């Protein structure tokens, strides 16, 4: 089913539980983000993109694979916006679509090494694939 960007924005707001209107655009989320330099669309922009309904750009963004879920943006946001939840919601929207997985089992063997802990694989699969 094809949805308009506006409808997708509503879904993102709903599953993330984020009220984008609470944002006062101070940028502290981006200032706190350890992955900022790796992102094409930055945490503070996720909030305004969702608010403005620019969802296609977010679905294309590589930022969703860079977010560490470290919650620094959630912890430090003065307005309690929780940008990490928006990024997660967009990521889910991508991996829930057919072929949206960022990690497939075939890739795994060459990424493994001796010491790699199980939880790394478990968390990567949770974050990157359906």
């Amino acid at each position, binding site marked *: 089913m094809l949805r308009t960007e506006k409808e997708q924005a509503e879904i993102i707001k*709903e*599953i*993330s*539980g984020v009220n984008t209107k609470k944002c006062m655009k101070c940028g502290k989320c981006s200032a706190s983000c*350890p*992955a900022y330099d*790796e992102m094409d669309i930055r945490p503070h922009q996720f909030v305004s993109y969702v608010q403005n309904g620019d969802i296609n750009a977010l679905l294309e963004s590589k930022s969703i*694979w*860079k977010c*560490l*879920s*470290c*919650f*620094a943006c*959630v*912890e430090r946001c003065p307005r309690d916006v929780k940008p*990490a*939840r928006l990024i*997660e*919601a967009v990521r*889910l929207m991508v991996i829930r679509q057919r072929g949206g997985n*960022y*990690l497939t089992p075939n890739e795994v063997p060459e*990424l493994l*090494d001796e*010491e*790699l*802990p*199980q*939880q*790394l*694989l*478990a*968390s*990567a699969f*949770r*974050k*990157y694939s359906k």
Partner: protein
Amino acid sequence: MVYSYYPGCTLKNKAQDLDKYARMSAEALGFTLEEIEEWQCCGAVYPQASDEIATKLSAVRALNSAKEKDQDLVTLCSACHHVIKRVNDDMKHVEDIRTRANNYLELEEPYEGETQVLHFLEVLRDRVGFDVLKEKVTNPLTGKKIGAYYGCMLLRPSSVMAFDDPENPTIMEDFIRALGAEAVVYPYRNECCGGYISLKEKALAGNLVDQVMESAADKGAEELITACPLCLYNLKNSGSAKKLPVHYITELLAQALGLITE
């Protein structure tokens, strides 16, 4: 005192030392970690979306199993602690998640967040007491300069984790001092190690680990301790900066209690 204990998958495999030393030390300090039966992997990351229920069920099962025994649930791995504590908070406060999870599980009595989730360090701080721990230390780690590495998952979001001050925590430093060593406070001790990113984004994870290592070395740390197998892996294997040795918290604890030698 007997606690329900959730070791998690990594402690059964790559991080067996973390688990083994914890159990040994617990007995020496007068409490028992009783592994809950038939636990399943917690999933290692907390599912943030409101429509994800299935991914939270294993945590609820573990929580309910502790509730049935009327015990607090102790965790050790930061990721397990994070997931289980946050799911517990959902079960307590988010009606929709509580209802749906209980509908799936069909427990005899619905689970509503009754279990108290404690990290091993919280047991040491709040139940045993660092002053008592200090008295039990037979082999003080005098002269060691140790930096605590907290990472993200124990501390944030503080409104749920309620573990310590998220920006200036002290629990691990107090732990280090109780073991007789010198605690080195450095600013990047609560910054991310890269987490699961290190699987596919080596450069990013490397950068983050380098910053942590440089920050710790800058303040004079000679080794680091962590509670998390993934942090340990990243700190050891990512990045190019000069490495400080990294140990599990329980390894140093067992040493200080004279249960193992270095």
